[in-house]
């Protein structure tokens, strides 16, 4: 009976149609009862994000931020630091929010106490982790504010922007650093800080010890003498707890000569590489 081709074809079609109908019904009912429609915007936003999963936005990962920024009207669209302005703009556009400006940042290690400059108080043998070493009398360096050099920050960076130099201090690769701040959180001394990439000068020290003590502990220390502050025509430098702080905003806005740099007796304040070459030299010429 089934050898009749036409008949056979009809059987096939009928069987499949029946099956399709039955399953279609089940599925349709299920669909009504089960599905949670998700907002397709979320995926689109996620596509935009750089997928660094660094957590700079304060969320568990890029996907979490995408979700939050779409669903929650209070979440700002410019939280993704690695994404810079472009991403912020794109996200604002998609979500219909207005983006504040994103100031690009870069990590700055506020310590120049390399092996040859900083005094060592004791020999440390133990777990090679800054946090753990910090618990034993704040680590082997005489300066208790200085970098311990075990590189906890290096392992915290998701972008491979940090490396431990031969001098025992971490070096930031400006090309790779996104300013996400993960290293800042990892450092037990809190001596890494995020700085606007446009900043001109930086203080390479975190010591709050009094001048004499600081100098005894490390020849590269900021001794809080205030020469830089006195010599800054724009009042951008301020001394607090025996340590110089530079207000990057004032510098960026006003300064083109960085007089402070030359005045520091210990060299604790220095110009950023780019600045030195382009601006100072331009001025000199």
């Amino acid at each position, binding site marked *: 009976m089934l050898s009749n081709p036409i008949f056979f074809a009809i059987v096939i079609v009928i069987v499949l149609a029946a099956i399709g109908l039955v399953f*279609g019904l089940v*599925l*349709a009912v299920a669909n009504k009862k089960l*599905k949670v429609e998700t907002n397709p915007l979320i995926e689109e936003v996620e596509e935009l994000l750089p997928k660094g999963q660094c957590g700079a936005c304060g969320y568990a990962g890029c996907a979490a931020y995408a979700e939050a920024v779409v669903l929650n009207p209070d979440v700002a669209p410019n939280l993704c630091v690695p994404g810079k302005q472009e991403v912020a703009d794109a996200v604002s556009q998609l979500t219909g929010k207005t983006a504040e400006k994103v100031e690009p940042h870069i990590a700055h290690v506020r310590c120049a106490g390399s092996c040859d400059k900083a005094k060592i108080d004791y020999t440390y043998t133990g777990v090679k982790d800054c946090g753990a070493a910090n618990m034993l009398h704040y680590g082997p360096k005489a300066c208790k504010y200085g970098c311990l050099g075990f590189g906890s920050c290096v392992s915290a960076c998701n972008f491979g922007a940090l490396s431990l130099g031969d001098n025992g201090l971490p070096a930031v690769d400006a090309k790779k650093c996104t300013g996400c701040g993960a290293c800042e959180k990892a450092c037990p001394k809190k001596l890494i800080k995020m700085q606007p990439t446009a900043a001109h000068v930086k203080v390479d020290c975190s010591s709050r010890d009094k001048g004499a003590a600081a100098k005894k502990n490390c020849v590269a220390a900021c001794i809080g003498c205030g020469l830089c502050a006195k010599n800054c025509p724009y009042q951008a430098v301020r001394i607090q707890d025996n340590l110089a702080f530079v207000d990057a905003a004032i510098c960026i806005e006003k300064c083109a000569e960085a007089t402070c740099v030359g005045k520091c007796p210990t060299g604790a304040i220095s110009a950023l590489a780019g600045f030195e070459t382009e601006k100072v030299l331009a001025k000199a010429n």
Partner: protein
Amino acid sequence: MKNLWRIFSKGIISENPILVLALSLCPALAVTSSVITSLTMGLTVTFVISLNNIVVSLTRTFVNPKVRVPVYITSIATIVTLAILVLQAYAPQLYKALGNYLSLVVVFAIILARAESFASKNRVFPSFLDGFGMGCGFTLAMVTIGAIREFFGSGSLLGIRILGSWYNAPLLFVMAPGAFIVIGYLVAATKSLNKKREERQKEREAA
């Protein structure tokens, strides 16, 4: 143009379905003990995924989103059955070697995933390219695995003895454990390859 190339090429290395996404692994292990079966399976999948992407892309405006998935499954299953019928008729030996694993093509996550995430949102030609690229990546991975396993495990390629009779082949490679281990190292190799590529690309962008 560049865009189209990107759509096609991502499936080959950077999003290789087997070695990177780790999807549709079963055939990657089960039928790769020789190059010829790997190739057949690879081509079948390429055929199915390309055709299905076309079908999905063509029908994307008619299909109710609520039955999207079942309809795609129906489409895939139809194409697979077609492929099976053809193989059965014209290459019964190969069909026998691939066995039920051919039927499993229906549930390969990669096919459904491409339909869902690409073809259902894009025009026909890009969809075809996407599917074709993924298929090529799949085939490439399959053939690589098959070649390694066949070469070391039997001393031959495509059934042709390459290594002389002095080669006392370790069966490990053609057996299940060897398959897993070979793929494990291939996955690692692809990963470091991809990483190097990415880094190079980043450097180029930075420069």
